[in-house]
C-alpha cells in the first residue's frame, strides 16, 4: 500500500498500479477511452489527463496521463485542476469533431461510453465548423455491425482482437484522422471472440448485429442475472428481453469466471429462445398412434392424471443441460433408483471418473481467472477453443505469465501494455497442446502433438511417469514422444502454478486418467498443480453429482420392464419422463426408437422441438434459461444461480413445476409440495448433502433490499402503461415471482444489490457497460461482496488416491477401417445455439476429415463425396451410413478419420468408433446446409 494525495487529501492506493485504475477504484469519476482493465494502458486517447505535482510546494504541476503514471508513495495529483479539466474537455471536443451526431439512430445510444464521457467532461457546444470525415463500412458477418464514421480511434478494438484474443483479421489501417479499423476486405470476422468488440468499443462502431433484428434501448430491457447454457464454463450473462422476446446477451462481470468477456456462441446463441421450434403449448396423443394435439394446461394435466393413475412404473431421464433443481424434481418424482442421467453410458463413465478425480484427488480445479494465472500448461486431448472457448481465451493470457517476468526485471509495470509486449516480444510461456488435430491455440503453443485418443493418453501417462517414477511407465513409447514427455514434465516442474487441462471432448477415459496422473504426479512431488476439465454441457457436472446411471441402464430398465428379462410380459410397461433432453443426441437412433416404442408412455418436458419430443405421447412446454430459475454447476464445480428474465407467454413453465404437478396429481408427493424454488433447493440440499452449498450460491426468494425486491426493469423503462394497450387499456398488474428476489417491474430497490443478484451494470453518470467499475472494490478485481458462485468440490490435499494404471496400447492401423474421432466446432457442435439464425449461418457442415495419404489411397480428393459406414458396438455388421464430403487434414494420423461432433445431421453418434470409408455411389445424402 502507498499513499497518494488527491486534491491534497491522502488516499491509500496499491503501490505501482496506474493512477487511472486507482482513482477509479477510489470512486473518482475520471474519464478514459483507450484504457481497459483487461487490456492495460497505452496512453493513446489522452482523456484521463490529470495534474501531477512534484511535492507540496509545487503549485504549478504538469499534465500527465493517469493511465500511464504509476501510483507511488507520496504522489500528489489533482483531478479537479482547472487546466486538467480544460484539457479533458478539449480531448472530448477533438473526438466529437468527427463523431457523427447520430445518437438517436445509433444502437449504442443510451449505453455509450462516449456519451457518458462527453457529459462528464462538460463539452456541450459544437465549435468545429468543418465537415466530418466519413468511411466505408464493412460487412463483418452475421454477428458484428460496423459503422466506422463513429470511430474515435481509441485502438481498443484491435488491441482486444489481436493482442488479447489472438485474432488476425482486424487491423488498424491508414493514419492521421483517417485510421480505419477493419478487415482487409469485407467478410465474417474470424475470431470466436468477435462479439466482445461490441462491449469493448466505447461507442457505436461495433454493435450487436443480432440485436439489430429486434432492437431495443438499454433502458427498455428487462434483465436478470443469468448463466450461459452453451458450454460447461458457466460464464455469467445478462440476457435482455422486451415484448416477450429475448433480444440480446451482455456480459455479466464475474472476476473469478468470465471477467469482461464472452465467446460468440455464448453471446449470440440466445436466439434459440425465440426459435420457431419452441414448444409453446402442451400437447398429447389421445391414442398411441394418434397425432400430437395441442391442449390446454388443464386438459393435459387431466390426461396425465389418467396416465399415472394406472400405476405403471415410471422412470425419469434427466439432462446435463437442465438445472439441478429440475433434475432433482424429476429424481424425486420417480425415485432415485428409477432416475437416469440423460447421457450415454460412455459419457456417464467419463464424468464419473472426472468427479472421482476432483473429489478424491489432490489437484484442485481452477476458476477461469486462476487459469489465466497458470504459468505452465499441458492441454491433453481437448480442443478448448471449440469446446470451452473462454478457457482458450484464458490460456492466451496464461502464456504471458512467464514473459511478464522479463518485463518486471526491466522495471516495466505489468499494465504498461505496449512496453510489456515490446520487452517480451510475443514470447509465450510453456503451453503444450496434445490434441487429435491442430487447434486455434497452436500459434501460442510451445509444442503441439497430434495423435489418436490413446496416443494422447500415452503421452500424458509418460509425462506423469517422468514427473514421478511411481506413476506407471508407458511401454513401447517412441523416443520422440518420450523426449516430448520429458520436456513437458520439466516445464511443469519449473512452474509456480502448473496446470493440466483435459476433458470429455475426445471421448476417451485414458486421456482423463492420464491428465489426472500428471496433475497428481506434480502434487506428489511438491508442485501443487491445478486440474481443469472441459465438459459437454452447462450442467454436466451438476447432473453427474446426482449419481444417476447413464442412458443404457434406462434402456435396459424399460426393455426389462416391458418384456421381462426372460420374455415374461406380465410386468407393466414403463412410462418414461424425459426432461429437457433429446435422446437421439446421446444414443444411436435405432436403440432410441426401440426404447421409445417399448415404453408405454413417453412424456417430454422441454422447450424446443426435437426428435424425442416428436415421438412423445405428452409434450409439456418448459421454460428456457431465460424463463426459469435454477442452479448450474460449471466445470470448476462452481454452483451458480440463473434467474428468470421474463414471464413467457402461454403455458410455458419451469420444468420443475410440471414435475411438481405430476407429483401432486399422481399422489406421489412425499412431503409438502414445493411452492417455490427455495423449497425445492432445500429438499435437494437435504437429500444430496454434497449439493447443500447451492443454497448459498445466491440469496433466496425472501431476500429483500430495504424491504424491497430488486427490479428487473430499470427505472427508465418506458411505455409500461401502454405496452399492452392494444389489447386492454387496463395496465396489468406485474406478475408475481415466488422464486426470486426480483420483481417483474420497475419498482423496487434501486441501489447496488449483492453480487449474485446484479441484473444490469448501471450507475449514475455511467450508462455503458463500463459502469461495472462501480460494482467492484478494485477496478478489474472481484465484484464488491465477492464474485458469485459457490464451489462444491474441493480436493483432498493428502489424497491417497492411486495413480491410474490402464495405460492403453499404442494405436495400430486397421486395414480397411478407420478410427473415427470427434472434431468439435464452436458453431455447430452445440445443439441449442445452432437454432439461433446468426450462429446457424456460421455452423460447420458435415464432412469427413482424412489424412491426405489415406485419401489419395482411396482415390478421394478434397470435397469428394465419401460413404462413411460406422459400426455399432465395435462390430462391423450393421452400420450407420453417411454420405459426406471429404476434407484433408494433414495432422490426422493415417488410419484415423475426423467427423464433426454434435452436428444436427450427425446426431447420436458416439465417437470415437471404427468405421469403413469408401467413395460414394448412391445413398441417402446428409443435408449440406446447416441446421435451421
Amino acid at each position, binding site marked *: 500500500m502507498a499513499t497518494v494525495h488527491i486534491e491534497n487529501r491522502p488516499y491509500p492506493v496499491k503501490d505501482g498500479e496506474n493512477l487511472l485504475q486507482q482513482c477509479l477504484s477510489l470512486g473518482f469519476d475520471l474519464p478514459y477511452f483507450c484504457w481497459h482493465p483487461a487490456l492495460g494502458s497505452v496512453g*493513446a486517447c489522452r482523456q484521463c489527463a490529470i495534474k501531477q505535482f512534484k511535492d507540496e510546494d509545487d503549485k504549478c504541476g504538469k499534465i500527465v496521463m493517469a493511465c*500511464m503514471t504509476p501510483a507511488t508513495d507520496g504522489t500528489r495529483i489533482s483531478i479537479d485542476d482547472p487546466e486538467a479539466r480544460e484539457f479533458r474537455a478539449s480531448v472530448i471536443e*477533438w473526438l466529437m469533431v468527427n463523431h457523427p451526431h447520430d445518437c438517436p439512430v445509433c444502437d449504442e445510444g443510451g449505453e455509450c461510453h462516449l456519451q457518458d464521457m462527453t457529459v462528464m467532461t462538460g463539452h456541450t457546444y459544437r465549435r468545429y465548423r*468543418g465537415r466530418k470525415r466519413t468511411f466505408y463500412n464493412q460487412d463483418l458477418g452475421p454477428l458484428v455491425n460496423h459503422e466506422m464514421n463513429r470511430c*474515435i*480511434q481509441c485502438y481498443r478494438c484491435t488491441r482486444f482482437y489481436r493482442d488479447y484474443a489472438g485474432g488476425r483479421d482486424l487491423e488498424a489501417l491508414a493514419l*492521421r484522422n483517417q485510421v480505419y479499423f477493419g478487415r482487409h476486405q469485407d467478410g465474417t470476422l474470424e475470431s470466436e471472440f468477435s462479439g466482445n468488440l461490441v462491449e469493448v468499443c466505447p461507442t457505436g462502431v461495433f454493435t450487436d448485429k443480432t440485436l439489430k433484428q429486434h432492437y431495443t434501448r438499454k433502458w427498455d430491457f428487462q434483465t436478470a442475472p443469468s448463466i450461459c447454457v452453451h458450454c460447461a464454463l458457466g460464464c455469467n450473462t445478462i440476457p435482455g428481453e422486451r415484448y416477450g422476446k429475448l433480444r440480446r446477451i451482455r456480459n455479466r462481470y464475474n472476476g473469478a469466471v468470465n471477467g469482461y468477456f464472452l465467446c460468440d456462441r455464448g453471446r449470440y446463441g440466445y436466439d434459440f429462445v425465440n426459435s420457431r421450434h419452441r414448444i409453446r403449448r402442451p400437447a398429447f396423443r389421445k391414442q398411441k398412434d394418434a397425432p400430437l394435439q395441442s391442449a390446454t394446461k388443464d386438459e393435459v394435466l387431466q390426461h396425465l392424471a389418467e396416465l399415472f393413475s394406472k400405476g405403471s412404473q415410471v422412470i425419469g431421464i434427466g439432462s446435463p443441460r437442465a438445472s439441478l433443481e429440475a433434475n432433482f424434481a424429476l429424481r424425486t418424482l420417480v425415485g432415485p433408483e428409477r432416475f437416469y442421467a440423460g447421457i450415454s453410458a460412455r459419457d456417464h463413465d467419463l464424468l464419473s471418473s472426472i468427479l472421482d478425480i476432483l473429489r478424491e484427488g489432490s489437484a484442485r480445479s481452477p476458476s477461469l481467472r486462476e487459469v489465466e494465472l497458470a504459468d505452465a500448461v499441458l492441454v491433453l486431448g481437448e480442443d478448448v477453443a471449440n469446446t470451452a472457448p473462454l478457457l482458450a481465451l484464458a490460456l492466451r493470457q496464461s502464456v504471458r505469465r512467464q514473459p511478464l517476468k522479463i518485463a518486471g526485471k526491466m522495471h*516495466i509495470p505489468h499494465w504498461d501494455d505496449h512496453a510489456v509486449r*515490446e*520487452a517480451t516480444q510475443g514470447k509465450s510461456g510453456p503451453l503444450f497442446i496434445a490434441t487429435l488435430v491442430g487447434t486455434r491455440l497452436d500459434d501460442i503453443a510451445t509444442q503441439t502433438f497430434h495423435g489418436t485418443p490413446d496416443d494422447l493418453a500415452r503421452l500424458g501417462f509418460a509425462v506423469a511417469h517422468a514427473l514421478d517414477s511411481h506413476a506407471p511407465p508407458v511401454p513401447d513409447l517412441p523416443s520422440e514422444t518420450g523426449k516430448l514427455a520429458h520436456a513437458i514434465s520439466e516445464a511443469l516442474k519449473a512452474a509456480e502454478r502448473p496446470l493440466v487441462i483435459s476433458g470429455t471432448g475426445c471421448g476417451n477415459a485414458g486421456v482423463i486418467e492420464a491428465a489426472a496422473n500428471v496433475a497428481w504426479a506434480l502434487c506428489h512431488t511438491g508442485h501443487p498443480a491445478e486440474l481443469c476439465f472441459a465438459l459437454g454441457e452447462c450442467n454436466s457436472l451438476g447432473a453427474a453429482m446426482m449419481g444417476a446411471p447413464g442412458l443404457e441402464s434406462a434402456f435396459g430398465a424399460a426393455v426389462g420392464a416391458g418384456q421381462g428379462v426372460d420374455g415374461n410380459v406380465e410386468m407393466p410397461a414403463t412410462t418414461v419422463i424425459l426432461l429437457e433432453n433429446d435422446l437421439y443426441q446421446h444414443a444411436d437412433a435405432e436403440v432410441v426408437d426401440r426404447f421409445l416404442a417399448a415404453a408405454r408412455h413417453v412424456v417430454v418436458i422441454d422447450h424446443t422441438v426435437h426428435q424425442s419430443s416428436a415421438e412423445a405421447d405428452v409434450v409439456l412446454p418448459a421454460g428456457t434459461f431465460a424463463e426459469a430459475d435454477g442452479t448450474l454447476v460449471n466445470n470448476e464445480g462452481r454452483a451458480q444461480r440463473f434467474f428468470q428474465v421474463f414471464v413467457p407467454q402461454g403455458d410455458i413453465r419451469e420444468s420443475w413445476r410440471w414435475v411438481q404437478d405430476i407429483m401432486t396429481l399422481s399422489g406421489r408427493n412425499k412431503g409438502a409440495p414445493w411452492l417455490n424454488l427455495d423449497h425445492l433447493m432445500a429438499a435437494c440440499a437435504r437429500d444430496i448433502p454434497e449439493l447443500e452449498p447451492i443454497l448459498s450460491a445466491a440469496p433466496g426468494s425472501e431476500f429483500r433490499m430495504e424491504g424491497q425486491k430488486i427490479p428487473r426493469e430499470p427505472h427508465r423503462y418506458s411505455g409500461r402503461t401502454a405496452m399492452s394497450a392494444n389489447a386492454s387499456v387496463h395496465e396489468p398488474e406485474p406478475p408475481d415471482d415466488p422464486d426470486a428476489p426480483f420483481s417483474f417491474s420497475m419498482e423496487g430497490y434501486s441501489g447496488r444489490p449483492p453480487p449474485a443478484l446484479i441484473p444490469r451494470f448501471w450507475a449514475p453518470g455511467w450508462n455503458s457497460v463500463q459502469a461495472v467499475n462501480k460494482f467492484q472494490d478494485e477496478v478489474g478485481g472481484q465484484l464488491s461482496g465477492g464474485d458469485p458462485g459457490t464451489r462444491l468440490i474441493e480436493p483432498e490435499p493428502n489424497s491417497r488416491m492411486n495413480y491410474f494404471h490402464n495405460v492403453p496400447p499404442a494405436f495400430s492401423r486397421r486395414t480397411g477401417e478407420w478410427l473415427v474421432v470427434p472434431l468439435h466446432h464452436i458453431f455447430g457442435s452445440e445443439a441449442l445455439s445452432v437454432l439461433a439464425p446468426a450462429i446457424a449461418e456460421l455452423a460447420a457442415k458435415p464432412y469427413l476429415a482424412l489424412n491426405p495419404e489415406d485419401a489419395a489411397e482411396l482415390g478421394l480428393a478434397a470435397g469428394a463425396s465419401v460413404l462413411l459406414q460406422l459400426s455399432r458396438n465395435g462390430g462391423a455388421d450393421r452400420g450407420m451410413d453417411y454420405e459426406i464430403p471429404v476434407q484433408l487434414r494433414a495432422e490426422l494420423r493415417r488410419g484415423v478419420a475426423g467427423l464433426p461432433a454434435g452436428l444436427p445431421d450427425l446426431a447420436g453418434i458416439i465417437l470415437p468408433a471404427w468405421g469403413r470409408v469408401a467413395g460414394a455411389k448412391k445413398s441417402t445424402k446428409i443435408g449440406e446446409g446447416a441446421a435451421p
Partner: protein
Amino acid sequence: METPLTRNILPGEKPPDLAQYEKSGGYAALREALRMSPDDIMEEVKEANLRGRGGAGFPTAKKWSFVPMGEDAPHPKYLICNADEMEPGTFKDRLLLEGDPHQLLEGMIISGYAIQADIGYIFLRWAYKLAAERLEQAIGEAYRQGYLGRNILGSEYSLELHLHVSAGRYMCGEETALLNALEGKRANPRAKPPYPQVSGLWGKPTVVNNVETLCNVPHIVNHGAAWFKSLSRSGDGGTKLYGVSGRVKKPGLWELPMGTPIRQILEEHAGGMRDGYRFRGLLPGGASTDFLVSDHLDTAMDFESMQAAGSRLGTGTMIILDDRTCPVGMLRNLEHFFAQESCGWCTPCWSGLSWVEQILQGLEEGEGQASDLERLQAHARLLGPGHTFCALAPGAAEPLQSGLKYFRDDFERHVQEKRCPWR
C-alpha cells in the same frame, strides 16, 4: 576555420571511395578507437560535449550511458542511425550521406563499439535514392575491407550493418516510431519509459543517433575533446551544419562553428535577402521550431541561446519568412504537413492538428471568424509537450504559437478583410 564534417565533400562531385577516404585519414579513428576501451570513447565524447544533431540536442555520451554494459547485458544490442531526414526545410544529413558515406560508417562503427552494439541499421528516408546507392556501395567496401563484420580489423569487436530504406513518413524520424517501423509495425511512437537503451529494437538495448551526430564521432576520437570544443563558439562542442532556405540571395548549407550568430549565417553566407524582399522572421531549426524575428538576429545558433530566445536550434536549418509571403499561408502549409503526417495515435495530434489546418485554410479563404484566433491560440497551448504522446504535435504547435505572437496583425487582417491580403 576547420570543417571536419565536410572536408571531403565537394558539391557536385562523387563522394570519396574507400581508398580516397582512407587516404584522407579515414578509418584511422576506428583503429584508434579499437585500441581504446568503450568507456574511454564514451568519456571522450562526453568531454567533447557533443549534443545530438537531430533536433533535441540531448548529450550523446549521456544517451549512450544508459545502455546496459558488461557481461550480463542483454544481446544483441543495436545502434541505429536516424537518416530519416524529413523535417521541412532540413537537408543537412543528405549532404553528409551523399557526400561522405564512409565518414558516417566510421562514426557508426566507433559508436557501436562504444556501446558494444552487435547490429547497426541506417534508417534512411525513402526519397534519398542517391544516398541509398552510395551507402550500399560504401557498406560493401567496408565489409570487404574488414571494417564491418566479424572481428573488425582483427579485434574482438564485430558489427553487422544494414541499410533500411524507410517507407517515407515524417513520423518515422521519431526514434521510437522508427523502431516500430523497423520492426515492421505501424510507425506509432512508444511511451517512455522504458527508453530504447533498455527496451529498444525487438525489446533489446538500442541507441538511435542522428547522421550528423555520428559523423562527428571519428573526429573527436582523432583529435580529442579539447580540439572538438575549440571548434565551437559556444559551450556546445564542434561545428554545425547550418542551412538557409527562403528568399535569400544564396540559399545553401555551410559547416560553421557551433554558435555562429544568425545574422552572420544569413548575411555573410546566404548573402542576405533577395532584392525586393524584406526579412520578417525565421524558423531557426526546421518547421517544428518557434519563429524568431529581427530582434533575434544577433542570437548565437546554439542549443542554449536559441532556447533563451524562445525557440530551438532544432536541426539548425532555417527557413526565412519574407514580407511578400503570407505568414498565415506559410503556417497553413506547415500545419498541413504536420496534420498529414500525424500517425493517428493520440487524440490531440490526429484531431487537433487537422482542425488547426482547417482553421488556417478558412482564414486564407476569407472564411475566418474572430473566434478562430482563439481556437488557434488554444490549440497552440493544448498541443504542448506532455499533452500529447510524442513530440510531433508540440513541434507543430511551436510555429503556430510564435506565429500568432509575432504576426497577430496579419491574422486579424485575414478575419477583418475576409480574405488573404497577400492574394
